[in-house]
C-alpha cells in the first residue's frame, strides 16, 4: 500500500519535473516579445523570436497585431525583458503593477511580465541545477571510485579532502568564491556549486565501490587480466550508479535553492536574465510600502514546487532502486 502511494507521488513528481524541463526548453515559444508566426508586408516570418529578422527588430506582438495580415501569438505575449510592457503610458502609478487581464501574474518593478520571467527563469534554475549536479556527479564518481578501489593512501587523502570540503558552509563558501571571481555569466555559478557539492556523491560512490570490489565478478575481471581503469569504469561504477542517481536528484533541488539564494543576494545571473531568486529580491523591496505580494508569491511557489517535486522524485527513486527502503 505504502509503496504504491509512494509510486504515485513519485510519478506525479516525475511529470512535474518533465513539465518544468519542457517549459525551460520551450520558454521562447511560450513567452516572447515576438509571435510564433506572423505575416507582414506579404512575407511570413516563422518563429521570429528565434530568428530575429531585421523587419521585426524592436517590434512587439501588440504592435504587430495591428499591422500584420495574420499573427499567431505565443501563449504569454510578453518577452521576459520587455519593460513597461502594457499600457505604461496610461497607468497612474509606476510599476510594479498587480495581476490583470494583460499581465496575469502582474509585473515587476520595471513593468516586465512576471509570468514571462518565471517561464524564462525556469531555464536558469534548471541549467544551474542540472549542469552543476552533472559536475558534482563527475567529480564524485572519479574521486569516490578512486578512493574506494585503491584504498590505503589514496583513500586516506581523498577522504580527508572530502571531509575538509564538508566542513565549509556551502553558501558562505560559494559567496566567497563568487566575490573573488568576476561574474558575467551563469557558468562561474555552475562551476562553484559543482566544485563544492560533490562530497556526498563521492562518499556514496566510495562506499559502493568498497562493497562491490570484494565480489566475485570483480575478482573474475582481475583474473581475466583487465586493467584497473577498465574494471573501475566498466564494472564498478555502473553498478554504483543507483544511489548516485538518488543523491543527484536531491542535489539538483539543493543547487536550485542555492542559485535562488545567490540571485536573491544579487550575485546570481547578470541582468537582464530572468531568475526566480531575482524576482524575490524585488519582492523584498516591495514588502510593505508599496506592497507587491505577487512578486513574492509566484516565484516562491515555483521554487517550492520544483524543490518539492525533485525531492519526491528522489524519494521515489530511492524506493524503487533500494530494496531496503
Amino acid at each position, binding site marked *: 500500500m505504502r509503496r504504491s502511494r509512494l509510486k504515485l507521488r513519485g510519478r506525479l513528481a516525475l511529470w512535474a519535473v518533465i513539465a518544468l524541463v519542457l517549459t525551460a526548453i520551450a520558454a521562447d515559444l511560450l513567452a516572447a516579445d515576438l509571435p510564433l508566426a506572423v505575416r507582414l508586408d506579404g512575407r511570413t516570418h516563422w518563429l521570429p523570436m528565434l530568428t530575429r529578422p531585421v523587419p521585426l527588430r524592436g517590434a512587439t506582438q501588440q504592435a504587430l497585431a495591428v499591422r500584420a495580415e495574420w499573427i499567431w501569438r505565443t501563449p504569454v505575449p510578453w518577452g521576459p*525583458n520587455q519593460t513597461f510592457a502594457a499600457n505604461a503610458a496610461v497607468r497612474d502609478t509606476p510599476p510594479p503593477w498587480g495581476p490583470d487581464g494583460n499581465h496575469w501574474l502582474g509585473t515587476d518593478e520595471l513593468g516586465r511580465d512576471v509570468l514571462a520571467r518565471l517561464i524564462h527563469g525556469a531555464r536558469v534554475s534548471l541549467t544551474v541545477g542540472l549542469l552543476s549536479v552533472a559536475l558534482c556527479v563527475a567529480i564524485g564518481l572519479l574521486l569516490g571510485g578512486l578512493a574506494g578501489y585503491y584504498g590505503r593512501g589514496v583513500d586516506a587523502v581523498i577522504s580527508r579532502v572530502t571531509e575538509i570540503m564538508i566542513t565549509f558552509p556551502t553558501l558562505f563558501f560559494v559567496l566567497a568564491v563568487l566575490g573573488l571571481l568576476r561574474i558575467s555569466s551563469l557558468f562561474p555559478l555552475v562551476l562553484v556549486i559543482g566544485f563544492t557539492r560533490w562530497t556526498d556523491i563521492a562518499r556514496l560512490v566510495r562506499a559502493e565501490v568498497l562493497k562491490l570490489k570484494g565480489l566475485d565478478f570483480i575478482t573474475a575481471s582481475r583474473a581475466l587480466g583487465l586493467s584497473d581503469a577498465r574494471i573501475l569504469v566498466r564494472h564498478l561504477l555502473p553498478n554504483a550508479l543507483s544511489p548516485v542517481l538518488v543523491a543527484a536528484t536531491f542535489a539538483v533541488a539543493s543547487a536550485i535553492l542555492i542559485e535562488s539564494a545567490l540571485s536573491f*543576494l544579487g*550575485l546570481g545571473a547578470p*541582468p*537582464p536574465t530572468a531568475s526566480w531568486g531575482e524576482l524575490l529580491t524585488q519582492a523584498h523591496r516591495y514588502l*510593505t*510600502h508599496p506592497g507587491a505580494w505577487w512578486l513574492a508569491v509566484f516565484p516562491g511557489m515555483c521554487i517550492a514546487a520544483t524543490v518539492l517535486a525533485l525531492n519526491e522524485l528522489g524519494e521515489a527513486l530511492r524506493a524503487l532502486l533500494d530494496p531496503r527502503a
Partner: protein
Amino acid sequence: MNRRLLLALLLALTACKDKKPAQLPTAPALKPSLAWIKGELPPEVLQGTPVSGGTFTVRVPTEPLGLNRLHDQQVEGMMARYTVGSIYETLAELDRQTHPRYTLKPLLAESWEESADHLTFTIKLRKGVKFHNGEKFGSKDVKATFDAILLPTNLTNSIRSNFPELTVTATDEYTVVMTTKKAHFMHRNNLLSAVPIFPASALKGDFNTLPINRAPIGTGPFRFVSWETGKSLTYLRNDEYWGPKAYVDKVVIRFVKDETVATQLWERGEFDLMTRIQPSVWRSIEAPTPGNAWAITGYHRINFVENYYSWIGWNQERPFFADPRVRRALAMLYPGEKVAKNIDMDLELPTTCPYYRPSASCDPQVKPIGYDPTAAIALLRSAGWEDHNGDGVLDKDGAPFKFTFLANPHSVKLSKLAPLLQEEFKKVGIEMDVEKVDAAQYVGRLRAHSFDAASLGWNNNDLNTDQFQVYHSSQKTGGSNFVSYDSKAADALLEQIRDTFDDEERHALERKLHQVIYEDQPYTFLTNRPQLDAIKTHVRGIHPSLAWYDLRKVWLLPPNATPVAVP
C-alpha cells in the same frame, strides 16, 4: 462533556459580545497637505520655546569603518554629517541660514584674516573651550591636527590633497598662522570648515589605531558614549559645552542598512529622524489610506536637494567611447522620461551640470540632450558605427559595439537602470553586458580604470566645488578622473577657476566649464538627488541645509504639550 464544552463556548462568545469595543481615537483627516507632499516642513517646526530633555533617534543607512573624519578609510559621507558639528567642531562652519550662499561663521575660531595674496591665514582661536576629556583647547591642537593630516605616512590622502604645501604655525596659545605657496579659491573653506579639530594628546601614536577612531573626543555639544558595532552610536549632551547647550539629552544614531527593514522600523515609530527614504516608499505613503496614517499624521517630510549629481561615465580609454559623437549618441539613448517617472518617481531632478543646482555656477542656457534614438543612430553612423554584417550589432572596422557596464549589486537604482539601458541600446544595435561588482571593489575598479562604463554620483557638503580632481587631464592617475576625460579647453578653465577669487568672475568661468563639459559628454549626466527624510511631528528645531541638520538646535515637544499655533 459536550454540553459543558458548548456552555463554555457560549460563555466565551457572550463574554466577547459583552465586551465594549476598544475606544478608537478619532481618526484624523488622512489627506496629506500639499506641503507634506512636497516635503516642506511646516513653520511650527521652527517655532515655540525650546525645552530640554529626551532622546533623539536617527536612522542612517551605513555604518562607517571608524569615526576619524581625517582617515582615508573612514571618510564616509554620512558619518561626517552626524559627527562633525555634534562631536567634533571645525574652526568655522557654514551658516545654515544663508542657503544657498552658505557664508562662513566662526566656531572654534573667533576671527580670521586672509592676506591680500590669499596665501596666509591668521586665525584667532576661541578661549575657554574644553575637549570632552577635560583638556583645554588651543593652538597646539589645531597644529597637531594639521600636522597629522600633512604627515605623508598617515592615511589622510583625501583630505591632504586640499592642502598642498601648507605650513601651520602656532604663534601663541590662541593664534595660528597657516601659509600656502599657491592661492586657491577653496582654501578658506577647506582650512576653516572642512577639518575637525582633535585634541593634540589624542593624536599621539599610530594613526591607524588611534583610540579616537572608535571613541572620538571633540569639543562639540555632544560627547561620545558608546558604539555598538552593527547597531548604533550613542551621544550624550555635553554639559560643559562652551556655547549654548544642546536641548536633547541623548542622540542615538542607528545603523539600518536594509531599506525594507528601515521602512518597517520607521513605521513602528522607532526613528525621530528617518533618512534616505526610497523614492518608491516616499510616493507610496502619499495615498490617503488608513494604512498610511502613521506617516501622514505622525511625520513631517523633508525633500531637500543635495549638492549631488549622478552620472554614467564612459571610459574614454576604450575605443568605443573616445569619440564624443558616440558619447552624445549614448546620451540620446538614455530614456530620461521613463526613468524619471518609473524609477525616480519624479523626485530626482534631471541635470546637465556638475555644480550645485541653485548656485550661479550652472549655465541655464545649456540645453539638455533629449531622448532621440533616430538622431542617435544618425550620429553613430557619422562616427562609423553601422551594422555592416547584418547580425543586429553595430560594428566598425570589424569590431562589434559590445561593452560591459560595471554595476554595484547593492544599488537599488542601478539594478533598475541597467536592464532599461540594455533594452534601449539593444534597439539600436549596441550590446551591453552587466558585470556586478561588490561595493568594496567598485571604486577600486574605477580608480584602476578597469571598466568600460560605470555609474556613480559626486556629493559635496559645501556649496563651492573644485572640479579639478574630477575633470582635469592630470587627474587620470591618482585623481578622480576615472573616465580619462582629456580636454585642453576644460583643463585651462579648471586651472583659471582655482586662481579666481572674485565670486562673480569665477562663476562666469564655471558656467563656461559647464558648457564645455556638457558638450564633450564625458559623463551622461543624470540627476540631482534630493535628501528624502522625515521627522516625527514632535521634533522641533530642524532645518535642512547642505551642512545637514544642526543637532544643537533640535528639541522635542513634551508628550502633553500644546503645539504652537500656526498663524
